[in-house]
């Protein structure tokens, strides 16, 4: 069941917020709206989460709605499955995406396939929130970007906003979605982006990308913190008269193939930017989608600028791991000069 994006009319009041404030606001809105919604995770109650995404929510909604759990990721996700099949809508927080690994077994073997296994008799309408990504000088494992491990597993949707407006709208859509959603929050953007966020409940449709910049020569496709890197490269290219269409994918599973096709069929060139490792990355699926729908329109091979095939390094070297606008710019030139 697809959810409709609600039109923002001038009559809807908005507030300028950071991405993390938009998430807190979205969680608060849904706790208010639907008593089946529950929050659970490590340090999310009194402490308001290590990033303060759940700040003030336990005070507002009580310990029965916003629950500090023991340090047990598999336990958090496994109990969420039980809560979800039994009438609740759990929103589980992983303290960092890199700490989701102990819960991997639950997600892979149960969250994602309970619906299929019971022919729809049991469903798992839950959301897993996870801050992710490098660039904040965090210790080892805290900066992993392994979304492809989850897009590979059928049965779970994967969402990744890059603006405050989308963060709240996509979060609410994820909570309302009848299937499990992995909701990735780019750490680097938590406090570095701000935009206008409507008050109250609204949804941004899962599975739909967004054009964040219009251009004619090259299509740049990115998500999360890499949208800004792509934008910067596009601005640089523009100085040389190369204009870029920049797409924020917003959902990584299922991917918005229409927005990609429309754009690459016009530009004939594509550069995909993601911070996750290149091999087996979501970028490869985008290459396939372009191949499937737009092969004859392409004027040059598709470029991928990704994190290297190395574990996300300790922070002294993370600036070298992360794709830079220089690398993206270089790839843009390559496609144009092919």
């Amino acid at each position, binding site marked *: 069941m697809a959810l409709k994006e609600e039109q923002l009319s001038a009559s809807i009041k908005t507030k300028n917020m950071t991405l993390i404030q938009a998430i807190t606001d979205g969680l608060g809105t849904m706790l208010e709206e639907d008593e089946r919604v529950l929050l659970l995770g490590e*340090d999310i109650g009194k402490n308001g989460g290590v990033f303060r995404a759940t700040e003030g929510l336990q005070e507002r909604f009580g310990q029965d709605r916003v629950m500090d759990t023991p340090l047990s990721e598999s336990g958090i996700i496994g109990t969420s499955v039980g809560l979800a099949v039994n009438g609740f809508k759990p929103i589980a927080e992983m303290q960092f995406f890199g700490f989701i690994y102990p819960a991997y077994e639950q997600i892979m073997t149960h969250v994602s396939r309970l619906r299929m296994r019971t022919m729809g008799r049991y469903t798992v309408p839950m959301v897993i929130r996870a801050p992710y990504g490098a660039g904040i000088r965090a210790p080892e494992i805290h900066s992993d970007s392994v979304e492809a491990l989850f897009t590979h597993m059928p049965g779970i949707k994967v969402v990744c906003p890059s603006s405050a407006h989308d963060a709240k709208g996509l979060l609410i859509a994820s909570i309302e979605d009848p299937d499990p959603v992995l909701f990735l929050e780019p750490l680097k953007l938590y406090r570095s982006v701000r935009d206008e966020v409507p008050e109250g409940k609204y949804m941004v449709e899962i599975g739909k990308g967004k054009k964040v910049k219009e251009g004619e020569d090259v299509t740049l496709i990115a998500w999360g913190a890499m949208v800004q890197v792509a934008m910067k490269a596009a601005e640089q290219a523009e100085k040389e008269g190369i204009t870029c269409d920049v797409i924020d994918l917003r959902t990584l599973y299922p991917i918005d193939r229409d927005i990609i096709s429309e754009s690459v069929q016009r530009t004939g060139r594509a550069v995909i930017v993601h911070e996750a490792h290149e091999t087996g990355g979501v970028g490869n699926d985008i290459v396939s989608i372009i191949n499937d729908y737009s092969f004859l329109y392409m004027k040059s091979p598709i470029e991928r600028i990704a994190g290297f095939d190395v574990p996300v390094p300790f922070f002294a*070297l993370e600036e070298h791991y992360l794709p830079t606008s220089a690398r993206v710019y270089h790839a843009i030139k390559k496609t144009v000069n092919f």
Partner: protein
Amino acid sequence: MTIEFPIYQMMNENGQLVREGDKERLTDELVREFYYHMVRIRTFDRKAISLQRQGRLGTYAPFEGQEAAQAGSALALGNEDWVFPTYRDHGATLTFGANMARTFLYWNGRVEGCVPEEGKRIFPPAVPIATQLPHAAGAAWAEKRKGTKNAAIAYFGDGATSEGDFHEGMNMASVFKVPAVFFNQNNGFAISVPIEKQMNSETVAQKSVAYGIPGVRVDGNDIFAVYFQTKEALGRARKGEGPTLIEAVTWRYGAHTTADDPTKYRNQSKSDEIRQTRDPLMRLERYMKNEGIWDEGWTTQIQNQITEEVEQAIREVESYPKPKVDDLFDYVFETPTWTIAKQKEEYFQLLGGEA
């Protein structure tokens, strides 16, 4: 269960021995060694916090208050034993023989900080909670199969006991009767979550019952108790009697990390009170004074020596060569795959072109 697992103490808060017979186990030399190591790691810890505040170090995980647990247990180890620390156990690793400059490097986001000294068997700090327990069980298992008398110790907090890996590691170790010591530092909190919300069991030590291994609960601020109980557990391990779970009940005064604010979830006045009454260093100082082995000159001398050692380590770190970009690529496999080789080549071309 608190009755079945009473807190083992050798020295009370006033620095007096609680049993007569223990006196002869405590040579002046050993007592001074305890004191020296606790001062050393406390000095390191305080310096690390101040460097972090000056922006000369990344986020840091302090341990002040836990010196007796860390130094006492590490001093009980043999040189050939294995150490499996978490991100907070650099007090233990430094005592065991980790390099101080490298320990600072670790907190500056340098992977070099994970590389143990030649001949020292120290694993990199385990950042994902509880994942090091099965490793300790495995390394200990290997020692058993090789027929040595060596053992492995794994450090972990109270929060770690909720993870699956805690249980899997303990169970494997007990089933295969390996020479491992599971050393828990129960400081009452896992970030903001107090122990009452972490578990319904009254003690960590009692969890040993489920695995059929000895469990002991010690006063983690009493370095004598920690040292001798760890020695005993290691002795059992070396004799082929299998693993032990030790719960050292302790307290950390400061924040979880320098990025955290404990006043949000913790009453810090309790912390200050503990510092006045139960502090491991003060307690040992009281003991030394009671026993007439306190020597103002000696303590000033070691403090100066330690301060100089720490300053020297910082100079070393701050003049350390910049991280090499090659290091990003060169250690993932013994021989880089073509994907990594290609990515490295292209990246260096780009870097060269820019420079």
